[in-house]
């Protein structure tokens, strides 16, 4: 079972797929919550995520100039504060005026916000790639030796371990929030039926704020994890991530955070595994089409089962 193929499969396809899946999952949580509670597809989500990664890089560079090498995960909470602020400002300026209007207006507005944020980042930091953390990531030596002794060697750099740990932590915290706290329950209530929630005395505006805050934290984490994984910062990464994240949200069912996590993992795995040589020696799908897999899954889901796997909302 665990031969050269298994080694290759797990280390070069399965683990990168799971890492990518974690990143998509975190991004999709924000999208699915906004879609469920505010009822619109937020096209600006990817760009906000990207700006969070840029802020984290700037914090690291500033602290680094003072001679302290900061781990990206330390910079993450500070970047998250900024991203939450950005989300709330966008909501106040661009989304709130359309709260009672047609959904489509707010979608167009978010389309505009996407471009505004991206061009602002491009103007401030320049359009070129920036190296996030230089150097080659070595596999974790301890994990390598332990699993190597057991006969199935796993090569995992520390960054991937951090990404897994961070994702699990955030998802556990999210499930605590949604199931145990008053705000979380109110969020779920508004997502299920805004009118009923309003009648029971839930302050919808507070819930919307909470949504942006939760979405902001997850989006920043997704952005920082993505640049930790690829080690480069690009201004186009927000748009590149946007469609896979939508795909994950739709796959899991709109308004279902756990569905989004599951959907993210499926999309991430599907993208990576589509390049695995399942039949013969050549990749099943040319790696150039890897990003197309998510779009294809999404389009098929929209047509076949628009409510998603977990019976989310379908409009």
């Amino acid at each position: 079972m665990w031969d050269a193929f298994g080694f290759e499969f797990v280390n070069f396809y399965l683990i990168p797929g799971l890492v990518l899946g974690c990143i998509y999952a975190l991004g999709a949580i924000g999208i699915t919550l906004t879609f469920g509670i505010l009822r619109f597809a937020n096209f600006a989500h990817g760009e906000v995520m990207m700006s969070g990664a840029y802020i984290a890089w700037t914090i690291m560079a500033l602290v680094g100039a003072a001679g302290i090498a900061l781990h990206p995960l330390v910079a993450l909470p500070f970047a998250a504060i900024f991203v939450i602020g950005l989300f709330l400002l966008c909501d106040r300026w661009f989304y709130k005026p359309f709260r009672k209007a047609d959904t489509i207006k707010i979608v167009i507005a978010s389309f505009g916000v996407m471009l505004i944020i991206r061009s602002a980042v491009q103007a401030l930091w320049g359009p070129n790639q920036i190296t996030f953390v230089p150097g080659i990531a070595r596999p974790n030596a301890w994990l390598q030796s332990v699993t190597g002794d057991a006969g199935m060697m796993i090569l995992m750099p520390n960054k991937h371990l951090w990404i897994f740990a961070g994702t699990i932590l955030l998802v556990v915290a999210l499930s605590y929030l949604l199931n145990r706290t008053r705000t979380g329950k109110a969020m779920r209530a508004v997502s299920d039926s805004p009118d009923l929630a309003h009648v029971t005395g839930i302050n919808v505006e507070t819930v919307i704020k909470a949504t942006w805050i939760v979405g902001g934290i997850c989006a920043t984490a997704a952005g920082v994890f993505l640049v930790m994984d690829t080690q480069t910062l690009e201004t186009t990464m927000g748009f590149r991530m946007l469609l896979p994240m939508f795909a994950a949200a739709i796959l899991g069912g709109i308004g279902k955070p756990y569905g989004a996590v599951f959907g993210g993992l499926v999309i991430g795995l599907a993208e990576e595994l589509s390049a695995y040589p399942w039949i013969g020696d050549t990749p099943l799908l040319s790696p150039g089409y890897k990003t197309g897999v998510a779009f294809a899954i999404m389009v098929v889901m929209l047509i076949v089962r628009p409510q998603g796997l977990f019976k989310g909302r379908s409009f």
Partner: protein
Amino acid sequence: MEAYLGYFLYLLSLLTVGGIYAIFALGLNVQWGFAGLFNAGIVGFVAVGAYVYALLTTAESTFHIGGFGLPLPVGMAIAMAMAALIAGLIGLVCIRLRSDYLAIATIGIAEIIKLIFKNETDITNGPRGINKIPRAWEHFSEERFYSSAPMSWIATPEQWVAFFDSLPNWYWQPLFAGTILLVVFIIYKMLERARTSPWGRMMTAIRENEPASRAAGKDVTKRRIEAFVIGAAIMGLGGALFAQHLRLIEPTNTFDPSKVTFLVWVMLIAGGSGNNRGAILGAFLIWTIWSASELLIAGMIDVISAVFSTLDPSILATRAGFLRMMLIGILMQVILQRYPGGILPEVRPASPKAEKTVAGATGETK
């Protein structure tokens, strides 16, 4: 005189590109303004039109498939037909999706189309793109055109060379701009006819109240697919003209969604969705702002780099280019919030019967 020539050519290029965008905006107006279909994948149809035109009309090449050297109008017609065909296939499966789902799906499809153009290197030359695309009117001065029929019937190649040498090298610019404006005018006339026809009124009814028009026995799905296909065909034609204007197309930067899809949306919203004149006005207006802001920002950079001599003007120049996009984005937000109808809001065509009764009730003669 020389200075005026420069202004004249700048005006012509504004009209050329503005006209191409007006064609895109008219196409989007059929989909969004008439039928209420949120197509966020304009760039996909534009790319199909541009690539089909480029492959059919370029001279034979080793870099990409064919280079079939077909006459230009044939290339444009097939480009239009291909865009329509692809839109038809997409429409069959996606048209029943709700507005923002349709937006997500069309963005995804546009990205898949671009991915195919990027990865099928044997057919499209991949990221390196296709160059030497013949441009209408300018192509007459290329050897393969004047040395073959029908141009060779009129005069010998030597005579043609002498003739083109006697013309100024910008001779094709007014002709090309004129052709594009003519195309805009023809499409406008046809769409105005469609809008005031029963078909156009039915589209409005479907957009405003789908259950009611369904109850009235209208085939909503079919009408929507029609609008989607017609809009996409117009975009494909625009794409063919876009390829002519650029003469070099490649999948990533030429067909940047923010510079095609988004700009066209801003144009239509600014001009007034549902109004064909508004679409044309918005296209020329936004393109002029876009184009003029480049000059404005260039002027600002001169001032800034004169004041702060420590800043590198070349870095400023590359970054300031992005401020234009931001400006357009903010402009769109302002229009959306303050003037939701656009500059020229939609005017509903009254049905001929209704006009008569009004005239009769007030005792006026029409």
